[in-house]
């Protein structure tokens, strides 16, 4: 983009993806993935999964977020405006989740946690999963983001990733119990994703002008391989193939390596998707020029 095209043509946001902004992308991915993994794992009583989820959220998610900040030491200030700011809310959710999650894990290791604590922790984990989508959809100037479907999409994607990771842990620990349910959950989330994602893109495409730019940037812009290879093939088609295959040959018929691979692909797909949505966050121009 040329400097003179600023807000004359649809103008991409840069703060949350370019330069150090790249850290923001990674931070959000891990916060949501970790929280979702904790949540799903806890549904199946997989403490190891909970721990991994917590660590992903706290170390990678929180860590990258901190490094991303201009003034990391003022981090604590960011919880001061939950009345109006989704970032404040989010950080309260995340920190609440991390504190309670840690207590829960600790109690579980030494003695036993309580159901109430777990429920509260999971409510916070869920809120930590959804807040990113809300924070973005609050942004009016970017039509691609300013969509009620974005939080839904992020929630579905987050939970799906979390579920996939939990499944890996399940497979690792070899516990047969809950596997079928987890698989069903994954299938449901995949199905939901397949419905929500195109709907999201289509509604954005037919919204304000910058929305159109965003969508075409996603599907045929510079980063098109991220979309077609990363999101569609790796992220959706391959996991779907594995699931369809599992209908035919049963989950146990699928080679373990392929299962792991499909989880990895799904995560890559999710990461690419988030990258694309951040990268294609175009503002509606202030002075749209119809000229050439």
């Amino acid at each position: 983009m040329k400097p003179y095209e600023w807000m004359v043509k649809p103008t991409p946001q840069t703060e949350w993806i370019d330069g150090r902004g790249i850290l923001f992308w990674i931070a959000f991915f891990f916060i949501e993935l970790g929280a979702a993994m904790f949540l799903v794992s806890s549904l199946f009583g997989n403490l190891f999964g909970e721990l991994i989820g917590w660590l992903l959220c706290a170390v990678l998610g929180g860590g990258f977020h901190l490094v991303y900040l201009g003034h990391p030491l003022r981090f604590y200030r960011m919880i001061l405006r939950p009345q109006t700011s989704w970032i404040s809310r989010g950080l309260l959710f995340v920190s609440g989740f991390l504190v309670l999650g840690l207590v829960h894990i600790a109690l579980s290791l030494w003695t036993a946690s309580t159901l109430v604590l777990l429920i509260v922790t999971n409510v916070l984990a869920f809120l930590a999963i959804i807040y990113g989508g809300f924070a973005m959809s609050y942004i009016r100037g970017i039509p691609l983001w300013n969509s009620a479907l974005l939080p839904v999409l992020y929630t579905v994607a987050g939970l799906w990733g979390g579920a996939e990771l939990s499944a890996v842990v399940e497979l690792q620990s070899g516990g047969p119990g809950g596997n079928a349910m987890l698989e069903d959950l994954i299938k449901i989330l995949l199905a939901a994703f397949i419905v929500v994602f195109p709907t999201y893109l289509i509604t954005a495409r037919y919204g304000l002008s910058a929305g159109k730019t965003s969508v075409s940037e996603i599907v045929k812009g510079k980063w098109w391989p991220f979309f077609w290879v990363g999101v569609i093939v790796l992220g959706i088609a391959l996991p779907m193939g594995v699931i369809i295959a599992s209908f035919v040959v049963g989950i146990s018929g699928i080679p373990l390596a392929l299962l792991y691979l499909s989880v990895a692909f799904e995560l890559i797909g999710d990461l690419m998707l988030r990258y694309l949505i951040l990268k294609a966050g175009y503002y509606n121009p202030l002075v749209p020029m119809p000229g050439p």
Partner: protein
Amino acid sequence: MAGSRQEQLREDTWIPTVCGRCYGACGIRVRRVNGVAVKIEGQPLSTQGSRGGTCAKGLSGLQVLYDPNRLNVPLKRTNPEKGLFVDPQWKEITWDEALDEIARKLKAVIEKDPKRLFYQVTTCRAPYLRGNTRPIMRTLGPPTAFVGGGGLHCGAGAHQIAGMVHGSWSIVPDFKYCNYAIYFGANKGGGSGHSSGTCIRLAAEARTQGTKFVAFDPMRNFASSKATEWIPIVPGTDGAVILAMCNVIVNDLGIYDEKYLKLKTNGPYLVGEDGRYVRDGETGEPLVWDSTAAKAKVYDDPSIGDFALEGEYEIEGKRCHPVFGLVREHIKKYTPEMASKVSDVPASTIRRIATEFAEAASIGSTITIDGHNLPLRPVSAVLFRGGEGHENSYHTCGAVALLNQIVGAADVPGGTVGWTPQSFGFPGTGKPAMHIGKGKDGMLTVDRFGPTFAWSGGGPWPPKMPEFRGDDPALHDIFATMFHSPFLASSDQEEMWQKIGLKGGIEMMISWGANTILSIANREIVAETLKRIPFIVVSELFSTELAEGFADILLPDTCYLEQADCFAGSGMGFSLPFAKDDWAYHITQAVVEPQYERRNFVDVLWELVDRVGKRDQLMEVMNDAYSLADEYKVKPGEKIDRLEMCDRVVKSLFGPEHDWEWFKKHGFITWPKRVEEAYWRCFTDCRAPIYFEHLIDIGEKTREITDKLGIDLDTAQYTPLISWTPCSVHHVKDPAYDLYCFSYRDILHTGSHTMEQPWLDELSHMNPYTYNIVMHSETAKEKGLKDGDLVELETVVGRKVEGRLKLLTGIHQKAVGIAACAGHWAKGMPIAKGKGVNFDILLELDLKHCDPVSFNMETAVRIKIRKIG
């Protein structure tokens, strides 16, 4: 600023002075904190400028002051080779070494022949340079003088016609009362032109009051984008359109201001078969036909009952006609259809605009201002570089003057005015005084106070006659109406010198600013002429292309924020408040003291004059030129410094209480302008031409000389009847060269030197057009070109430039525009380096590419375009 910080400040003060980033010379004030200039603002109380504002160029002056690339010490070339892109291998020398060498050479050249000294100044500091330059030139010889690239690109036609018609350097609408203004390639109020800041303010105000602006321009950018109506036009064809409008108004609508034509122009003068005035046998004065008495009388005979404007009369057996009748007949050939064919302006548009203009003129209406009842003609037609920058410059400017005068809209409320040439002076001293008077044949003359407020060498009227001497490298002796000489930088320079028998050429050059390698024409052409000059001294702020390639000695000047001078905004008068805005007189003063070894070049010139032993002579010239009051005159042998001179000048002008100290404190002085000054025409008995009788004699004489010398001059335009002649750009037959390329000024840049300020560079990148080549999106589509393509433009003779394409729709479909004077490569200007496109590479410069009357050069060029990346 936080209160606690305030205490740490040792100093926090505002210093009033003037801006020096273009020749507008807006009043400014500069804030200095702890010795550092930190902020520039406009001077709200002065009428010189926008009354408190400035443009971005003005603000960016702080980055001229603090540019680490500024010259700080005198430099001497050690590389004997000269040429474009040559590294001069500068060596630092002391001021004494520099001055010794320069003075030695200067003495030799002026003793031999001052005309072999080529003295050039930049336009951008014209108001400042002017007052100092003229006396020094007079003292030195005078030498051969030149005004940067400007003399050739701008004003050659416009200044002469404005001088003859308005007694002024240039013209402008009387924004305050004007309802309908037409621009033929001028940017008055759009960020360039004379009094740029003042015009921005006044034109903006006029827009909100409903003044209609019509802009004929190949591109819809500055003034044209603010115009009510933009009319795309083929470059160089304005004259045809203007004359067609005159034709519609006079012949179709039958509208004209009879009274004005009879009393204020040569319209009633009788012209014989030979085109010359029919003169009174006794007095030699031009005759008119008194239709009441049915006999011929001298034009100013008080007994005249009424002037005949038309008809055929016989005097002493010779048939004759009044000028107006001839003009009326002559312009019939400029039908809107004819003009439309060459200009691409629809004939219906020409008719409509002509009609609107004539009706808006409301001939006969009056207005009372300060108790005076005056004609009100709220219409104005103006032009400058765009319309006049062609091989038909003189006549195109004449056409504009004709259009204005037909409806009587010249120097009356609402009409076209000059920069007020009539001044009764400051109350109490009566200075500076400028007077419009009546000269030869009743035509107006300007008699002005010295070099400040001065018109130009000699004044506009009566014009000089050619007189061949063969000793002038500029050829001014042959071409009497030539404003600035192309032959100082043209490709046919040697040929011309040979033809006039000039032995040897220019021997020394002093260049005060001006970067002519970039700003005149193709750089190789200019380079050849510079290589012929054995010794070149350049005074500059930066090591420019001119300096690096050709200077033998490069002197570090102070910039305007480090200079002190009493000639700040006065110049040729075109920075002064015009129309009914009150008078203002500003000084320049140093906001910070000069850093390093930078020296004000005026002081350097004084020193040089001293070293060549002409100090007393200079003081004598200055006594006279500045019309110093007796008590302030410098006595022979008396040695005063320049600031002392400034003190005497201002005291002379404004009384002893307004001394230099007073001016340093206040920066400027204003006083009310009287109606008799602002709208002097209504109070002055003098006339302006609508018929250039003088061109007949000048043309014949010139022809005689050029024929003898074998100079192939086309004298067809030495015709008294204002005409339109096509230019070389219109004669290109090869269909490959299908586009007209032109240059325009960007509001962010002055000449070539503003690209060096990082602020302006940043802003230029934020503007879609400044650094790019612009053309119409449809034309681009036809040629398979896209926005952002790297393209090459090539002229018929194979001159090429390249740049990035920016498409738009607000441009004539056959036109390609390039902003400003860019494309630097000098090492001394790293910020400017490589930015924008140097349009001038495309331009030819020789006799054939100049208006044969004014010698304005052709500034449009035919090109073809191709994609190269």
